């Protein structure tokens, strides 16, 4: 059912766990639906320098989280925003049709974290101003 890559990342997820003092946090999904993805980022010079995730969900949700965090680590925020769920699916070697929504969560999780970071920064700049 799952590709080897999905299983590998599910069994040994990269960038897993909570982050202390993140610059941005994105949380997407809904416990009612059985999927929550929380992405933590640290940003320096508009670039994601550190990232981690916490995920409540199935194997493909965990693997997608792991994959997307690896993919965007080191990218600029704009580059990271350009990563689509399709890119995640491809990097995973494919997902079963009914699991595509997990990759969508991954895409949305990154977006939410970046938005959070930008909102905070804006608020910070405004506060300083």
């Amino acid at each position, binding site marked *: 059912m799952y590709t080897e890559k999905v299983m590998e990342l599910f069994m040994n*997820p990269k960038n897993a*766990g*909570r982050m202390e003092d993140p610059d941005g946090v994105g*949380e997407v999904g809904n*416990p009612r639906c*059985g999927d929550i993805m929380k992405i933590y980022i640290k940003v320096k010079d508009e670039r994601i320098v550190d990232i981690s995730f916490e995920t*409540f969900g*199935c*194997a493909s949700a965990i693997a997608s989280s792991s994959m997307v965090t690896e993919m965007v680590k080191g990218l600029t925020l704009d580059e990271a925003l350009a990563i689509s769920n399709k890119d995640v699916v491809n990097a995973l070697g494919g997902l079963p049709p009914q699991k595509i929504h997990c990759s969508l969560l991954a895409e949305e999780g990154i977006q939410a974290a970046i938005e959070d970071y930008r909102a905070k920064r804006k608020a910070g700049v405004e506060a300083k101003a």
Partner: protein
Amino acid sequence: MTERYVYMDHSATTAVDRSVLEAMLPYFSEEFGNPNSLHIWGRKARKAVNEAREKVAALVGADASEIIFTGGGSEADNLAIKGAAFARRDKGRHVITTAIEHHAVIDAFHWLEDQGFEVTVLPVDERAMVGISDLESAIRPDTILVSMMYANNEVGTFQPVAEAARICNDRGIIFHVDGVQAAGHIPFNVRDMGIDMLTMSAHKMYGPKGVGGLYIRKGVKIQPIVHGGGQERGLRSGTENTAGIVGFGAAADLASMRFTDGSIEEEVRLRDLLIDSVTSSIEDAYLTGHRTERLPFHASFCIGSLEGESMLLRLDAAGIGASSGSACTSGSLEPSYVLLAMGITHELAHGSLRFSLGKDTTREDIVYVAENLKKIVADLRALSPLWKNRG
């Protein structure tokens, strides 16, 4: 990869017992006749089918003439429900079932709804038990059929089948029981209990897949859903699955033996050990279903802050076979309708896990499962944004 393999998904299916396979083997390539043939090949096959029918009948206290073989439990459920409803539709169009039936029952009722029947679905309590008073008040003058499972496949709870039967018997309503999980695992007698129809499935009791049985009490009329050559008293046409039926007979024999040799009691002990280990060693882990009124081999849980499929796959990696009513295992977004009907929240229901023990399960297996589950839960909770006690 893994040090050990422990299959704990006997509610899903069981391995054909060696003695059962031995009994079946001659009927593939040697005694391969069609039971409907007049010649010696046919007569030997007919004899084998008849003997198997006796054994399956004996398992539940029926007469051999009251047992029909089908192509599985789902087919037997469909045959019982659609067959009885169609045979009695001049008497009324109201039928009753429960919220936690297997899909084979639920979907047969949905189909009846499409054909103009009216369906009442009985609720269950938080331990998955139907209330007898709910049944009583659901019954109408035009009620012709009630279907209620003996024991639930997801949470193991027994239904008050004997009481429900009495109520239906008194009112002349046909009472069908889906006994797929219970038959062969606990002793009971259809006649004493007043059951009109009982569904069984060989592969849930160490027999082969693809063979079901339907007990139909003498006098109960139903219509077939597979028409044709008139086999099985015209109620299930098609060349009989001789080897499969022989296997079902042997499995019924084996089950009857296990009722008297202490196997069931030992199963209960191991089940309780698993239940106690899991609920005591894992925080936020709850037994689902009834604590005592449950299948002797069945232990089901909800594990807080986690999702079922992820636990299943980690267990699988540790060589442990289990199952879950999680949405992700069914391909839908909704978790198990059974758990929801019991009032369990969506969030918790996503974390359901079922371990169903088998006749070869050992104490060591239980310990292995409990230890691995504990570790897996801890690992996955470290990833879970819902888990409170982190760090």
